[in-house]
């Protein structure tokens, strides 16, 4: 039986094959480890590597296929993505643009009680969701760690690892009690694995939740800071608690409440409706 692969060593081999200079490790996600590399003196890129398993390979392929069809300033650029073999083992290797502005998780304090910044962030990411929608893609994992910045102003949606392609067969088993995604930022239909209800409005919920949290400084479904309770409330399809709704209204962000509605039919139907609502308030 093979032990866990030495991904740093694999990264060095990949860099050698692709003629990159390995600069440093950036961090790890659920499956992938990311490295900062340079293709030349002025071009820095993010190299991501993951061991391939039978269950993960279709997801990697789907992510690559989904991202390769996208071209939007608020969607991370994918330069290359493929399986590579080293020492008889297969690894998934992707090369993406390097976003050096950090994550929203790191910068969330900049948006605290700053409704104009929140609206601007919301509008640019809603435009990205529209870009995905017309391609029948649902990101399904919108959270502060997956929103990065290309510059001070340009937010970018990253990590399409569990992207759902609506007109392709599902990769999630129907019998699973919960669909993939980060529960803390997931809509009820995702938490309950109600696949027929998943569409761009599922991402709308996640985005609104991230925006609301950034604006008021706590998870909108847990004004008492009890995060498991927040997930339970969303799964029970409860409305946003009154204390959070009041805070959002005070900041002129009441329009987010519709995006946080428990059922997709009650949310904004089109991304442009959300963008308009954010602008109007």
């Amino acid at each position, binding site marked *: 039986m093979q032990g866990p692969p030495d991904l740093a060593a694999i990264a060095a081999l990949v860099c050698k094959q692709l003629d990159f200079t390995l600069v440093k490790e950036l961090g790890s996600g659920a499956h992938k480890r990311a490295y900062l590399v340079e293709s030349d003196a002025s071009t820095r890129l993010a190299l991501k590597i993951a061991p391939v398993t039978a269950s993960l390979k279709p997801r990697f392929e789907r992510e690559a296929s989904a991202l390769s069809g996208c071209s939007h300033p608020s969607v991370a650029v994918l330069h290359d993505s493929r399986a590579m073999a080293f020492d008889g083992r297969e690894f998934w290797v992707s090369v993406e643009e390097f976003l050096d502005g950090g994550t929203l998780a790191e910068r969330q304090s900049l948006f605290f009680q700053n409704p104009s910044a929140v609206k601007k962030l919301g509008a640019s990411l809603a435009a990205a969701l529209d870009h995905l929608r017309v391609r029948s893609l649902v990101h399904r994992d919108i959270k502060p760690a997956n929103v990065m910045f290309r510059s001070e102003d340009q937010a970018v949606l990253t990590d399409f690892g569990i992207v759902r392609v609506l007109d392709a067969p599902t990769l999630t088993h129907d019998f699973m009690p919960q669909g993939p995604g980060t529960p803390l930022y997931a809509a009820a*239909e995702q938490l309950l694995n*109600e696949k*027929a209800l998943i569409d761009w*409005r599922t991402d709308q919920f996640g985005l609104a939740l991230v925006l609301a949290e950034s604006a008021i400084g706590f998870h909108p479904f847990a004004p008492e800071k009890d995060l498991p309770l927040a997930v339970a409330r969303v799964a029970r399809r409860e409305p946003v608690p009154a204390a959070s709704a009041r805070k959002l209204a005070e900041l002129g962000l009441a329009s987010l409440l519709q995006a946080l509605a428990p059922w*997709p*039919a*009650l949310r904004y*139907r089109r991304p442009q409706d959300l963008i308009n609502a954010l602008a109007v308030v």
Partner: protein
Amino acid sequence: MSAYHQMGHDSWNLIGEEALRSFKGLVLSPVNDGPAVVVEKLASLDPLRSQLDILLDPQFYKPGSDRGSLQEWAHIPRDFGTADVSDIGWWGERCRLLAAEAEQIGATSVASPAVIPRAFTPDYYDWVVNCAELLAGATRASVLLTVIVRLSDISELGAVERIASILTRTQIDRIYLVLYDDVPPRSQRTDVEALAGALSLIRMLEKAGSRVIVAFSGLDMLLWKEAGATAVATGKFFNLRRFVPGRWEDPSEGGRVLPYWTDDELITWLREDDVRLLLRLGIIDGQRASGSNPYSQEILSALERRGGEAWVRWGWRQYLYWFNECEAALDAKKVSTRDILGRADRHWSEVERRGALLFERANNGEWIRAWLNALLF
């Protein structure tokens, strides 16, 4: 004005009639007419035709082996009975043929294919959306997403929201809603929770930006308009003898079609003997009825002549006239469903107070309170 005349057997002669000209559109019925007849009849409607939304309902949901003229239409394949209709790929060809037929006959709108499923699951509603999108990709005509909703299902907690969420996933924003139940002939719907569910579904769809046409409506169109339905279709009027034209199935043949009087105060249909009874008791005010509906006058004249004259043709027209005028008045907010039903309840109380026993036993007005209560949810 957003009432649609749902075509049935031999109803073309009603379209051009002066008092019935203000319908917004026609719902064509392939079960009743083949494409050649439809083309010919539509041509005869000029110049009125240009003002009408000509909606082709492909009627894939028509059950049983007796499909009438459906077999003359290319979109209904010969292997329909044995095909795997759950395979969305199979429907691609059906949609292509349906689109071509719609263009050929000059339809301005097409309702998407829908079948009556064994189980009304989220997968089914997902399927109807996918099918509508297939059709939208094949035609330049305006597409309506056809959905058949079983009334008994939508009183369950969360059912309305779940169905509405799936139906509003698409950018197709016109919905052809068929409400399906097993209410027997000669009965109106009285399940308050199911009716409240239907009202809630219509409200939610309209609020989400969909424009709903409730197909096969009858007197219950009062409810659908109160819920905000953009449009209502009359139901096939030949079903009137079944007392529930809201249901879409044709009656099995074998009996003669009975004439019915549409009573706009009791909100019911009355047989001739009951019309005579209520006229005698003064519960029907003949003068008022004639003033509000020109076809009521024709019926009353026929009754006065006492020659056993068949007045089916006037009964049909009286209903269509009521449907169209009432829909317009509701749309313009000149009247409200609550007022109409409240008045009907008082009239039924008067029927009871006078001890009148209608010959049609099922015709007891019990649905009026059920409908009023459904509005409270």
